[in-house]
């Protein structure tokens, strides 16, 4: 009836994966320990920091607040897959140019969240970008450089569209 272990099938970064997971295992432990995708980080494991952000079925979620068992049949994208797809290669370059990371612990989560913001393709004021990113903590940069990088990328994309 109720299970201690579950057999799940899902897509991770475009590849079919099947596995048997303990009921209590959250998605990021599954990604890191079973699939060795260590780009998704665990800061707090209770929803506060956003280091664990991953995309599930098209939207960014807290990977520490979703069970692996719940992702049976889902399409999961991690920072590894996002990088490979080149969806935010411009943002990644701007992160480097603007020095938007120091230790880099928060960076995968920042990129996963910012990817959703950039995909909306809205024009956003700086304070709106800040609000959108408010669920992701950074202990190093003081945030300005991160917001700069996102703002510059957003503006560059719009510029490209216009030309």
């Amino acid at each position, binding site marked *: 009836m*109720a299970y201690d272990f579950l057999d799940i099938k899902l897509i991770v970064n475009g590849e079919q994966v099947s596995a048997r997971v303990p009921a209590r295992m959250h998605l990021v432990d599954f990604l890191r320990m079973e699939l060795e995708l260590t780009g998704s980080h665990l800061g707090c494991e*209770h929803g506060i920091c*956003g280091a664990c952000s991953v995309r599930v079925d098209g939207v960014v979620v807290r990977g520490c607040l979703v069970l692996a068992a*719940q992702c049976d049949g889902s399409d999961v994208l991690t920072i590894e897959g996002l990088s490979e797809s080149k969806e935010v290669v411009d943002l990644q370059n701007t992160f480097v140019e603007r020095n938007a990371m120091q230790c880099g612990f928060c960076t995968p989560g920042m990129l996963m969240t910012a990817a959703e913001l950039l995909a909306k393709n809205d024009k956003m004021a700086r304070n709106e970008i800040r609000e959108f990113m408010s669920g992701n903590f950074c202990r190093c940069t003081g945030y300005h450089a991160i917001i700069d990088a996102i703002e510059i990328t957003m503006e560059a994309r719009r510029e490209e569209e216009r030309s």
Partner: protein
Amino acid sequence: MKAAKFKYIRPSSLDEAINLLSDFGEEARILAGGQSLLPTLNMRLSQPKVLIDINRLDELQGISHEGKHIRIGALTRHVDIAESDLITENIPLISEAIEYVAHVAVRNRGTFGGSVALADPAAEMPACTLALQGTLVVEGPNGRRQIRADDFFHDLYETARAPEEILVEVQLPIRRSGESFAFMELSRRKGDYAMAGLACKATFQDNRFLSVRLVYFGTELKPTLGENVMSQLEGREWSETLAEKVIASLEDDLDPVDNLQGSAAMKLHLQKVLTKRTLAEVVQRLGNV
């Protein structure tokens, strides 16, 4: 931290979910968006034996127009509330308040039903449901029943829902002419739980308050009606003098709790400031509709 061991089950119908909930009793918890439940499990503040995952139950989805109210299925995610035209047009208080609920990744998963069922004292949706005099529909082994929001919120995380009942939907009345709404909240950072907040629905006739609903959250153990303030306003026209008078009577309505968010005295002060601003805003908005 990691959650203690539990079992997981994903029923494929509401009936099955209800049966499971009554079979397992106190040992089981419903898993909706998981955005409040999973943090408490990971921190081992709670250790249920079984999680019943309702995420794939179609019966609990969707926002629809039904007669004089809008029906919000319990599994409707915060993001879907924020993006719904039906809500924006018909229940403006909810679309204003939903902007204050959590951060994007949490909004993509957290549900309206989960928020109301949990009844966090600092949460926005329970307060709005009470301000709007919504109706909560729950279903258990003995069938469905409706609970008025006025009868639903009992105490800290305690509601009129029985442990073996599932919250199925919430019905919120569609706005009518002469009604005006406002919502205000103070938090340290956008998306965090409130330090103090207030949801208001007011009905006017000839510029006078006909009736007012003021619901305070973030400062009490549950969303709380400001009954003294409400009765002082009825039949009167808004003015600075009236503002000062009603604010003084707020002390009889509220008994804020001290916590990490601030002292009781500070919270009472904040609620007074918000009361004045919110009432001025509903009056001003009425003129603009």
